[in-house]
């Protein structure tokens, strides 16, 4: 059940450009990887909440990882331990874990947030997973890659070759082969997701789940603001906040998404 909480910042760590916040909600939370919370940024002049994927969860504490890109995220990144945040969540539809033993997770940049939570969940279920994470350069996310490498089977790629493999994370996954995977899960920039979707065939597309981003107002499906194009025969649009943010590869119209 989603709810509205006054959540206290109980831990705060910086990984390069990302700030990880742990938020104590005061009651046991039941959330799936891929779900998000909608956070009020108490800066006058900002009137909308900001959506953040859960990057982890334990009891009544939820984690998010925030990248500073504008006024709202800057305010969040500057929040201090003890500060109270007004959050709504967990919201939206998370990843479905259909079983099977081999799972490939692909994250681009900040898309790592929900993937970290998903990797953790898969591990707890005793499933085998590989996490492919691509970033621009190592420094961008500080020591996060090192930490993830301890948690799961991480394949790390940087575009500038400063660490891990040099190059594109989608190519890395495709080179490793997607045919035998029971689940393919992706989150990252639009370009990365369309590139991935368009490299897959009908069958592997069916195994793909993507976590999408779109600008949001309500976060609960009421305003129809956060839509992505639905594939035929449905056409029209699906909301990221309620129908998603996680979609099956075949639910979306990748041609219109590429634009």
């Amino acid at each position, binding site marked *: *059940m*989603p709810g*509205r909480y006054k959540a206290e910042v109980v831990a705060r760590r910086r990984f390069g450009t990302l700030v990880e916040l742990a938020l104590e909600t005061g009651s046991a939370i039941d959330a799936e990887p891929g779900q998000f919370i909608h956070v*009020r940024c108490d800066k*006058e*002049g*900002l*009137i*909308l*909440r900001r959506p953040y994927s859960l990057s982890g969860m334990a009891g009544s504490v939820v984690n998010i990882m925030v990248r500073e890109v504008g006024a709202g995220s800057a305010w969040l990144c500057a929040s201090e331990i003890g500060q109270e945040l007004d959050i*709504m969540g967990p919201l939206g539809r998370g990843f479905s874990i259909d079983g099977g033993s081999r799972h490939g997770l692909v994250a681009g940049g900040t898309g790592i947030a929900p993937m970290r939570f998903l990797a953790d969940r898969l591990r707890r279920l005793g499933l085998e997973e590989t996490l492919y994470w691509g970033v621009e350069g190592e420094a961008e996310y500080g020591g996060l890659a090192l930490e993830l490498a301890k948690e799961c089977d991480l394949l790390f790629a940087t575009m500038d070759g400063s660490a891990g493999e040099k190059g594109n994370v989608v190519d890395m996954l495709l080179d490793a082969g997607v045919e035998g995977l029971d689940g393919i899960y992706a989150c990252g920039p639009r370009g990365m997701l369309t590139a991935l979707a368009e490299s897959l065939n009908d069958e592997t597309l069916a195994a793909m789940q993507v976590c999408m981003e*779109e*600008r*949001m*107002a*309500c*976060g*609960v*499906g*009421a*305003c*129809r*603001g*956060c*839509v*992505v*194009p639905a594939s035929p025969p449905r*056409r*029209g*649009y699906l909301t990221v906040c*309620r129908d998603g943010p996680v979609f099956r590869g075949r639910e979306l119209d990748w041609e*219109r998404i590429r634009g």
Partner: protein
Amino acid sequence: MGEDKRINLEVELSGIRLRNPLLVCSGTYGNGREYAEWVDLEMLGGLMTKSVTLEPCAGNPPPRLWETPCGMLNSIGLENAGLESFLAGELPWLSALPLPIWVNVAGFSQREYVVVASEISRSGMADAIELNISCPNVKKGGIHFSSDPREAADLVEKVRKVVEIPLYVKLTPRCGDIVEMARAVAAAGADGISLINTFPAMAVDVETARPRLANNTGGLSGPAIHPIAVLLVWEVARALDLPVIGMGGIWSWRDAVELMMVGADAVAVGTLNFSDPAAPLGIIGGMLDFLKRKGIDSAAALVDMAHREGG
């Protein structure tokens, strides 16, 4: 304080009794269901539905939202499942709530407005119609009717003939002479006026030189436009003797009381719902405290107070 003097929050508009003067704006509360798990809907004064069109409408391509200083732009473009689905699914659910429902009707031609309004009225499930002749997000229709008083009056007259419940007309703030427009729709048979719809506006990403919204332009809402709403309600309420529902950037009980003082008989919360779904209830609480503190015994007594103060 000590005495338990009852304060009456009820207001009556066109014969419809509202528990309190706080409604929620069309398009900002879905059709109620999305917020049913967040808020006790029965505590609201009333609900204005998302715009209903004759056919299902996919709306505009994304991105549809952009935040601006103390405001936001939207270009939803009337996305909705169409009349048939609304009559079969949404409206029965809504009408089961002990709450007056204004069904917001939009169209891309006169005929569509007339058909939808007439069906809604005939269904017996709506308390009133709010005719959206001012949606800034559809190229044809919409804005057209609200930019020319004669066109608007002509449409209202046709709709009036087929509708047996109170008919409210929602006007755009993009208008040189709002009183002339309000007079025209009143003469054509409107029972009340809703003020204001979003203000047509735009934002461009300078990094790409492209508009922030796929539709290029959108409607501005939120606190930024509140002072404009206050003036337009003031002007219309002074000039006409029809009920007015005031909306536009209400962000606190003060903003709601302000709109009533300049002449709104009821008010509606819009954009604020996105950041706080329970805001309308908080505003009712704030209004109640204010009435108590001031020794005013009813919400209705707030209406027009600024005019009476000789402003």
